[in-house]
């Protein structure tokens, strides 16, 4: 099937389940492992990732197809994407800081972390490689962000509960056990395969 004909909704759900950006493509692992100790900050970071990936995916689509391709500058894509993402998070951080202190404290502090989050950058690279249309890229950005947020929330929930209820071998504590839990979650997500498919 031609990729341009796939309905954006299909892409949205596939990006959450079968092509989850964290569980099948391993993107955004660093902040995933570091922040998932605590449920509240996981939620904050998750929402921030959804927001930024939903906005930067179409923005970068425009930059790539309307600016870089017409001038034959495709090889500059990495630099262009990084600059767009960094500038976008910087601007949003400044706006949020002005508009609402509460929102800044819950969401804004995570924005600098996101600039170097590979989930956002990887999502942009995927939409170029898979040649999505503009609408599809919005759906993909939103789906990828939601999938990432879902994964980090699941891990944070399990980790906070485990801290109270169970003992882990000292060598596995921290990243080790987090990786094993993620492996189990990833196995569960394989159960989705076959429902929707993109690639």
């Amino acid at each position, binding site marked *: 099937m031609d990729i341009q004909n796939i309905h954006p909704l299909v892409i949205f759900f596939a990006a959450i389940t079968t092509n989850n950006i964290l569980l099948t493509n391993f993107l955004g*692992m*660093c902040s995933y492992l570091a922040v998932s100790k605590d449920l509240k900050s996981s939620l904050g970071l998750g929402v921030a990732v959804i927001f930024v990936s939903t906005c930067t995916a179409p923005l970068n689509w425009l930059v790539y197809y309307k600016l870089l391709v017409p001038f034959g500058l495709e090889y500059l894509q990495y630099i262009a994407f990084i600059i767009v993402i960094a500038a976008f998070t910087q601007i949003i951080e400044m706006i949020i800081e002005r508009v609402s202190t509460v929102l800044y404290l819950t969401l804004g502090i995570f924005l600098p972390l996101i600039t170097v989050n*590979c989930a956002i950058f*990887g999502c942009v*690279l995927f939409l170029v490689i898979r040649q999505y249309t503009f609408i599809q890229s919005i759906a993909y950005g939103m789906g990828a962000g939601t999938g990432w947020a879902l994964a980090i929330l699941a891990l944070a929930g399990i980790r906070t509960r485990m801290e109270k209820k169970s003992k882990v*071998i000292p060598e596995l504590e921290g990243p080790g056990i987090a*990786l094993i839990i993620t492996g189990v979650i990833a*196995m569960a997500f394989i159960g989705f395969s076959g429902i929707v498919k993109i690639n």
Partner: protein
Amino acid sequence: MKGFAAFKRMLWDENPVIGQILGICSALAVTNLVKNTLVMCLGLIFTLMMSCLTVSLMRNVIPRQVRMIIQVLIIAAYVIFIKIVLDAFMPDISNELGPYVGLIITNCIVMGRTEGYAMGNKPLDSVFDGIGAGVGYSLVLLPIAMIREPLGLGTFFGMQVFPPEWTKWNMMVIAPSGFFALATFIWVTRAYKAGGAAK
């Protein structure tokens, strides 16, 4: 010599992957084929070496406020160089690695070394430190790939090593085993380190 000590430290004591839990994304994503892993490792070593050298040479002229974005741009320039070389000489591998070559830019190991070491040290020491980090990364990835590829596909470096009757562990090439393999690796090395410290 300071640089040599930095090199040695990065291999084991402060190994970027198992010690500092950095650069996990690509450590999980490319390790199902030894060949891809090798290319990825060489790419990372090159990027680390060159960007540490460049950042270290420029460390006195980079303004503190914008140092992050300058470092990212320096790294991105070298990654683009790698991408172009790969596209020209190894188009198949370049296709298979897909977005992961570009994701070297957001690989935390590179930023961690340029920000943490190269910004405050002499060029030669920084180069050794960078190469050390890259080799330390390879020392983790290559063994994992060497376990995953033969078990999952019955091949090693693309060559058949197990007889055709070998039942392939499909599990080993898909996502969850990446998490399990890395967790096991962290477990074993930490247990070994703890045993060494106790003696």
